[in-house]
């Protein structure tokens, strides 16, 4: 086992897990909505990026468009389905009553609804854009080390993953929006009574989660095959990471990205890709079983014990 290979594979795996999970984590952790269509949101980001880049735009510009498209889509989904506000607005004017209960904190219903959205998206994209679109090339080439070479772009992705985590940390702790959003999540009633527009916080949070999914899609568009069904390849990692992470969204995602990435890289190196995946999933099952609040729960328990001493 070559330590450099191990390191690069860890970085790769970490980036993939973190980027897969982070949009889901924000929406789940902040709003109590499980977005089973998360993979398809990622797919939208990838399609946006690929289509715009194919039209001749520079890759970075195309990626930005991909993120924006997904964010706008997230906004529409939040307004029409998750909060039901748009549909209720229409219904109140035609039927004289609202017809939709918001999906916030209706975990199971939100899963079913977003699964349906994912279903529609996959086939909708297939109908509109066909089974395949011309794919992008991975930029930035490779670097050599010893007899090995590594894609620079994949390395950049792991840096981006770290930046996304740091950036989110900054947004949610050092901006007014972030603080208000967290206050809304902790105690929506009190936040509202202090003048925070909690609806707006929910919408914005959902849009941020969607934009992050879009970013993931944009970033992986040049490295993975962009097809309508690509979303499912992110879904498992995303769920596993969020659940293993536990309630503290950013911290948890970082921890689980680290743990699962390391397990995956190690077992892949030792026993091959299949065992890498299986080991990762079994680790997840064990963590869920042993730590009911995930890795952040473990950290908190340890902290409580320390306070007691």
């Amino acid at each position: 086992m070559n330590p450099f290979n191990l390191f690069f594979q860890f970085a790769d795996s970490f980036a993939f897990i973190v980027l897969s999970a982070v949009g889901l984590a924000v929406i789940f952790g902040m709003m109590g909505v499980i977005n089973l269509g998360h993979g398809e949101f990622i797919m939208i980001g990838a399609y946006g990026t690929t289509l715009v880049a194919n039209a001749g735009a520079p890759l970075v510009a195309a990626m930005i468009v991909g993120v924006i498209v997904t964010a706008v889509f997230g906004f529409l989904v939040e307004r029409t389905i998750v909060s039901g506000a748009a549909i209720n607005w229409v219904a109140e004017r035609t039927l004289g009553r609202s017809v939709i209960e918001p999906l916030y904190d209706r975990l199971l219903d939100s899963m079913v609804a977003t699964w349906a959205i994912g279903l529609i998206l996959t086939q909708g994209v297939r109908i509109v854009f066909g089974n395949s679109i011309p794919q992008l090339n991975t930029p930035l080439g490779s670097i050599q080390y010893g007899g090995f070479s590594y894609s620079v772009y994949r390395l950049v992705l792991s840096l981006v993953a770290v930046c996304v985590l740091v950036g989110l940390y900054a947004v949610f702790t050092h901006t007014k929006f972030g603080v208000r959003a967290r206050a809304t999540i902790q105690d929506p009633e009190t936040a509202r009574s202090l003048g925070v527009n909690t609806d707006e916080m929910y919408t914005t949070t959902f849009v941020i989660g969607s934009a992050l999914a879009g970013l993931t899609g944009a970033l992986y568009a040049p490295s993975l095959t962009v097809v309508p069904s690509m979303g499912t390849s992110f879904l498992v990692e995303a769920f596993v990471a969020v659940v293993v992470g536990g309630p503290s969204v950013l911290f948890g995602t970082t921890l689980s990205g680290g743990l699962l990435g390391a397990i995956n890289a190690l077992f892949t190196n030792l026993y091959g890709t299949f065992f890498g995946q299986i080991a990762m999933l079994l680790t997840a099952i064990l963590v869920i079983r042993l730590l009911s609040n995930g890795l952040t729960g473990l950290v908190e328990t340890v902290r409580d014990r320390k306070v007691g001493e």
Partner: protein
Amino acid sequence: MLTCESLTVAYDTTPILRNVDLTVEDGEIVGIMGKNGAGKTTLMKALIGLLDLREGTITYEGTDVTGVASNERARLGIGYIPQGRDVFPDLTVEQNLLIGESINADDDDPSYDLVYEYFPILKERASQTAGTLSGGQQQMLAIGRALVGNPDLLLLDEPSEGIQPSIVDRISEDMRTINRELGTTILFVEQNLGVIRGMANRCYAMKRGEIVDELTGSMLDNENQIANYLAV
């Protein structure tokens, strides 16, 4: 400044407030006293808009705010200090204060200095998470959080609850100073005799969801009459 007419609030079928009428004049400190379960907190929540009215109207500074969302009421200048430890436990003291900035949209100059002047401990603990403060400190934070946005009216829900007597006295004093120096109107609910006598210019008595009496001026000196409406 604030007028309520025949407020009725019910959970499912059980009415919690029945036909409550009250008025608060500009610059006053008005108390509402009553035992646990009298409906005091429900009244406060109805005033800020966290509970829907079954009947009645609420007028704030001449505007009917009955159907207005609570965040909009806050932005009109009502500062709400919820009961107990309703600070945001995972946010720092400073971040808690930041939430209060949304209050009173007309005023976009948050008064951090003023808050820190009244409650220096909050400055000391600015970067500590609110959940780790003591009960009294949390209460100060809740008051400071409402003050940051320079509200015209403060709604204060049981400031004495679960707090050391000495700190309760201090809080009463601070509230009076705020009222005097800043001209902030205050409406509070309380069951602590000392706090009521120490703060209120005027006081309503509540019992099982109804206003049963109004005590003004010298009536407030009569300890026994007040105690009558309270627990003992």
